[in-house]
């Protein structure tokens, strides 16, 4: 068998050609715009329905807006792209596919629940490293109202949320990954395995996803021979306050050091006074936090190297209703400024 020069260890691939985040755009809804990171996002919507009839249409429009403005930021046209890799939370990923029909770029739909965006970004890196493309568009969107309907209850139903409950982020993000420009570069991607530690509580996704994040971080460090201290910031996507707590416990139990570098996108996208359970979730959560918060830090040189880990709960309403546990996944990408 030929030696695979771009593989590292068990689950990691290396991008020696240094694919970069060439241009990007982030949009968030009003609640996220009231959070502590409002200034990190390029656009804050005043109306999360965007004058559309249904929240599904609003989610789709949000994604189309993010794509259009990301391309404009890089002075690119759809014709300049070789692939469009995207996914979202809705059944049959309709937000992505419906947005893809208007741009005429070869489309690869992906689904990894809330980890979708990093899966797309990792695949973009692979396509670029392999010489299959020069520019790949990656994007995702999620919307509180569409996710509530699909996974939970009618919006106006009498439900008392618990402290571990997470709130789907309304937002969209798009980026073009290419070898051009001077944006932060992707150096490694660690694709996660599906992990299921038997958690069944759908109102505590954070605790269900923490083992997947733990496994991927552990494997990433093992494959690359790095420590947590080699990163200035380790950003998990949407474990929320409860999931982050569990991840820290798991890492502490195996004597990892450098836990002060751990941050979570979901736990900090809303402020405490907004009283939103354990924090944000949804495909847009890690996407806007990476392309907003993290990218700004890398670009301004406040940090030099970061690891992003996006976690996804791979359940469906059917599996949950039938009493199955929640399989989860986590993908990691390391970025350098």
């Amino acid at each position, binding site marked *: 068998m030929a030696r695979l020069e771009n593989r590292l260890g068990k689950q990691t691939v290396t991008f020696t050609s240094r694919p970069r985040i060439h241009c990007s755009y982030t949009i968030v809804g009003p609640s996220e715009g009231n959070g502590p990171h409002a200034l990190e996002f390029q656009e804050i919507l005043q109306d999360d329905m965007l004058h559309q009839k249904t929240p599904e249409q609003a989610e789709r429009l949000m994604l189309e807006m993010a794509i259009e403005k990301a391309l404009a930021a890089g002075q690119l046209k759809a014709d300049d792209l070789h692939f469009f890799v995207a996914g979202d939370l809705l059944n049959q990923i309709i937000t992505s596919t419906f947005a893809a029909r208007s741009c005429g770029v070869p489309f690869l739909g992906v689904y990894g629940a809330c980890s979708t965006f990093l899966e797309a970004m990792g695949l973009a890196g692979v396509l670029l490293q392999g010489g299959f493309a020069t520019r790949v568009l990656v994007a995702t969107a999620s919307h509180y109202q569409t996710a509530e309907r699909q996974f939970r209850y009618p919006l106006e139903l009498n439900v008392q949320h618990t402290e571990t409950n997470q709130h789907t982020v309304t937002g969209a993000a798009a980026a073009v990954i290419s070898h051009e420009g001077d944006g932060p570069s992707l150096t490694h991607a660690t694709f996660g395995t599906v992990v299921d530690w038997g958690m069944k509580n759908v109102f505590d996704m954070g605790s269900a996803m923490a083992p997947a994040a733990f496994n991927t971080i552990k494997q990433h460090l093992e494959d690359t021979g790095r420590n947590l201290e080699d990163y200035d910031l380790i950003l998990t996507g949407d474990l929320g306050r409860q999931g982050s707590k*569990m991840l820290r416990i798991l890492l502490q139990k195996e004597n990892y050091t450098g836990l002060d570098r751990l941050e979570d996108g979901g736990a900090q996208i809303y402020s405490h006074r907004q009283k939103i359970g354990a924090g944000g979730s949804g495909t847009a959560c890690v996407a806007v936090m990476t392309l907003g918060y993290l990218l700004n830090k890398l670009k301004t040189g406040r940090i030099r190297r970061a690891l992003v880990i996006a976690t996804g709960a791979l359940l469906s309403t059917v599996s949950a209703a039938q009493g199955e546990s929640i399989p989860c996944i986590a993908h990691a990408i390391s970025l350098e400024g």
Partner: protein
Amino acid sequence: MQPEEYQQLVLHNSPRRPLVKNAIMAFLTGGLFCLLGQVFLDIATIIERTEMEAAAVTLAAMILVGTILTGLGVYDEIAEIGGAGAAVPITGFANTVTSAAMEFRREGFLTGMGSKIFIIAGPVIVYGILSGFIVALTKALLTGLL
């Protein structure tokens, strides 16, 4: 780490549900709805001829209250504070029906609202009828009517 071990770990590290606070808030919220119902009943007793009629009017009024509060987007806020106090009274039942109707209206009147309006309230109706039947049957057997 074994999955069982992790599940225990999560159990020990999960925030405790504020049971006492929840119970007090549910008591107060549910109590307020009952108070409102009593006011309606008192008024209805003056207007209507029989107690049965007064009770029916009160039920209808409470359902209307639940429906309007849901339509205004207030009921879920009340439930966030009041929990079971908002879910258990008949206003809660009105809320389950109205919220489903509002949610699925976008998929049309027939396939959306029509077919999904009882998606949350359905079990209450099914098991309500079933338990009513069992109670009636038990009573009939005990009193020797059968």
